[in-house]
């Protein structure tokens, strides 16, 4: 019976971007509300940045899910590196036109002049650091025309900061930074995720000591935590199947957390 719990717990922490799995934490919730407010403002661009695994894509996905019914919104999870492809995709997804021939920047601007929306269409670009500098410049020019509003996410590195400075410094934009979770946030995150999936028994097995150990290993990074917990519940499932006497059902074992960290490469042993 327990074994199934561990397996379902494992599935909870699969690294997928699903707005349904979004966990509201105090700090994240405030940031999300700021993002939603910024979208309503007459801003040309909004920058969402932070280290990898801090929940940028998840927040962007959540935003998409929340506002898609209210206004025209397009989300690109995978960067469209080719300029023509990018412009053709925008024309298709925003204006519903499927150009058979090549669409250049001037043609796209002429096309956008023929369409008016009650609310400015919103384009959500994930992993914007992968776009070329030329394409970023075009995106900037499109946003300047105020025909399309962009929300972009960036990894916060020194190089990416330079890109942000170069392309968005003179724009009217708002930037929001996402951070790793604190120990208390991480505990809420883990337990909420488990409880959302009806894994109440397993959620109760996490105490402060366990969460602190996990936080030490992952530094509160959500993606790393997901990865670690996925490995942890794989191990628990194995023990449940093969050596159930080694399982303490009242608490998560620090030993097994560390074993999971070794398996996932967080601990070099």
């Amino acid at each position, binding site marked *: 019976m327990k074994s199934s719990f561990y397996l379902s717990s494992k599935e909870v922490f699969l690294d997928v971007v699903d707005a349904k799995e979004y966990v509201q934490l105090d700090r994240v919730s405030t940031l999300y509300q700021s993002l939603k407010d910024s979208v309503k403002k007459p801003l040309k661009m909004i920058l969402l940045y932070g280290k990898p695994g801090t929940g940028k894509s998840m927040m962007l996905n959540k935003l998409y899910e929340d506002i898609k019914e209210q206004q025209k919104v397009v989300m690109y999870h995978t960067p469209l590196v080719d300029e023509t492809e990018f412009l053709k995709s925008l024309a298709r997804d925003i204006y519903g036109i499927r150009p058979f021939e090549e669409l250049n920047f001037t043609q796209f601007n002429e096309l956008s002049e023929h369409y008016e929306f009650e609310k400015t269409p919103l384009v959500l670009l994930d992993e914007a650091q992968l776009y070329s500098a030329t394409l970023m410049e075009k995106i900037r020019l499109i946003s300047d025309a105020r025909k399309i509003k962009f929300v972009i996410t960036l990894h916060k590195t020194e190089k990416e900061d330079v890109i942000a400075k170069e392309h968005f410094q003179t724009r009217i934009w708002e930037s929001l930074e996402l951070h790793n979770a604190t120990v208390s946030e991480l505990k809420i995150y883990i337990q909420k995720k488990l409880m959302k999936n009806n894994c109440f028994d397993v959620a109760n097995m996490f105490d402060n000591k366990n969460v602190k150990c996990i936080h030490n290993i992952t530094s509160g990074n959500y993606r790393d935590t997901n990865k670690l917990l996925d490995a942890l519940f794989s191990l628990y499932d*194995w023990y449940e199947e093969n050596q159930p006497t080694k399982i303490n059902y009242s608490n998560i074992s620090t*030993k097994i957390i560390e074993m999971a960290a070794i398996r996932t490469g967080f601990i070099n042993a």
Partner: protein
Amino acid sequence: MLNVHDLERRWLKYKIKSHLPHFSLATVLVTAAVLLFFYLPTIDNTEEIVKNTEDKKAVLPKETLPVETDNDIKRKSTQKVQMPLEVPQNTQKQEVQHPSSMVLKPSLHFMDNIEDTLNPYMEMDDKEQLEQESPLESSNERIEPPSEKPVEKLQEGLPPKEKKQMLTIKKNEDESDLKDVIRRFKKNKNPALSLFIAKRYYALEQYQKSYNYALITNEIDKNIDESWIIFSKSLVKLGQHELATLTLKTYLKNSKSTQAEILLRKIEAGDFR
């Protein structure tokens, strides 16, 4: 595919590796503690020895005594002589004070403990004294009347050749040789040496110095009759008859010293000047 056994092995290895620095540190600390436990008593003993030595040094200050230079002695002794008779009553307080602030004053409160011993000092004239005191120069022992008697006997029984030897000894007893005794006294603060110096100065008719060294002797050991007698005699020689008389009278209240009585009578009768 999960290889849990391999993971467990790696985990054990990791735990050992992660605890190794703590274990090493603990081992070092325990070793250090054990070493300290065994070696500390030795160090303590050494420190105690050093401390004791320092304490002894502190009890016997070298440089602060007023015997440093002749000029100092002269100046202080002159001041002393001019002081009123209340001087002896303050002596006990001064003993508690630091040597640097010590002022030489005769203390007469000790007289309760003074034994009445017959000292042949009074029977000797100055010349005899010179001859008897010379052998003491080489020893650090206290000058006691019994120690002088054998010297007398020895002198009486000596053939003429030995008398010549004594003349040689006399040669060594000049003021320059006294410096050596003073130096030795400064080192060990032996009252026998200070008494010897007082006697020597008295014999050399340097009464201020003899007064001063007699006073120092009294400070170190209050129970030496000879010292008090030299002290009083020096006072008389310095013209302080009344002070000498008063000192002897005060001394005799607590002592049955025959020598002191004889000297007091002589001073009062004017036989000793």
